């Protein structure tokens, strides 16, 4: 399994890359692999806000429907519209193909996320 060392992760298998008060978010390799062929992405709403851990989007594979949760609280600034017509990009490269950019409302929440090492250890406890 591929874990990008420069990102932070959640136990729900989202990643975030933090720059200042902005965070670029996506789903991890574990998530895309377990979902299988991704065929639909319901993108977050621009200007929509979500608390930490709240559902902001939906990712569907042939068999499964999964919520995507906001790694930290914030407001959605940008979404990756390319995923609407090419959801399979998340299978091809889930770290290159981000889902949304959010404005982080409470930077202290970032400290609660897992770094790559902790996330790898967490994944090792699963199936």
């Amino acid at each position, binding site marked *: 399994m591929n874990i990008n060392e420069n990102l932070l992760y959640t136990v729900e298998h989202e990643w975030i890359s933090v720059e200042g008060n902005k965070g670029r978010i996506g789903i991890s390799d574990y998530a895309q692999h377990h979902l*299988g*062929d991704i*065929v*639909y992405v*319901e993108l977050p709403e621009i200007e929509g806000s979500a608390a930490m851990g709240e559902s902001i989007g*939906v990712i*569907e*594979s*042939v*068999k499964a*429907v999964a919520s995507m949760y906001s790694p930290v609280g914030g407001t959605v600034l940008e979404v990756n519209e390319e995923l*609407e017509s090419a959801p399979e990009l998340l299978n091809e490269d889930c770290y290159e193909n981000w889902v949304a950019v959010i404005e982080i409302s409470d930077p202290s929440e970032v400290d609660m996320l897992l770094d790559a090492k902790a996330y790898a250890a967490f994944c090792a406890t699963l199936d």
Partner: protein
Amino acid sequence: MTLKQTPLYQMHLKYNGKIIDFGGWELPVQYEGMGIIKEHNMVREQAGLFDVSHMGEVFITGEKAEEYVQNLVCNDVKSMHDFQVMYSPMLYPSGGVVDDLLVYRYNQQKYLLVINAANVEKDFAWMQENLMAGVTAENVSGDYAQLALQGPKAQEILQKISDTDLESIKFFWFNPKVKIAGVECIVSRTGYTGEDGFEVYMKPAEAPLVWEAILEAGGEQVSPVGLGARDSLRFEAKLPLYGQEIDQDITPLEAGLGFFVKLDNDDFIGRAALLKQKEVGLKRKQVEFSMLGKGIPRVHYDVYKDGVCIGQVTTGLHAPTFKKPIGLALIDVKHSAPGTEIDIIIRDNAIKAVVGQGIFYKKKTRTNIK
């Protein structure tokens, strides 16, 4: 509960199957390195090999076997010839479906019924409850493994390791003694994908050998296929799944399976209820639909028209062949005309869809072999 394994479990591990609990059976949903869409396309374009050993088998034997089976199912068993196969629903007196099954006729005193894995106990109990003098029902599910080889290349591949000219097995016929890779098998030209292909039954101990021989004979033209693509393939071909398109509360007439219901036959369980339903008129009906708005319809999602719930989705999927979502729904007959706009409720949002006709996969089964 201990999960059951088919005789091919070790093969699924060998080919990196992603194992799930499927109604108490440990079976692969897909194989590593392939995935549902690739496996699906493999069957449409070349060939795919499925382990369907979890399916149940029941032998019906005895002097009155024909009469018994005819009473048990709603299709026309009496019109069958030796070595013919017939699809039929099996009904409750209410007209609801106990299960759908394949009937293999050896002769008028011997039939093999192939039933759904999840229903084996219920079906067998039902068969025994309705047993008549001069008939024996024997559940032999544990004595048979079953493989399905499906796709346009299926015959070419299987022929390489068969002792019998497969062209001699017509669509929905079988040969009870074909040697595949030296193993004696029952082979029928049947399947659950909308493609040409075969279902092959053998003793459990010999299943891994046959499995490997088929993969070797097929080379690049065949790959193992899991339950995920089995569902998407059968769905695209509009083949019903028990528990979704049909169940104890849905009659075959409502599910659009009227072709398999022969009301002219003297009697069968459920006939009176279906005659009445036909006389009164159907209140709900299965329809095809495609999405106008964005989203993927899924089983059990509600269907609305003008703010009123008119039914539910029975299966919905992103159809790999069409690269877009389509669905089947059981809805109020008043809104079932092709072209009718309906709403599918996806995560509390009403998403526009339209009732269609003929939007599903045109089956490539070889119905025309002479």
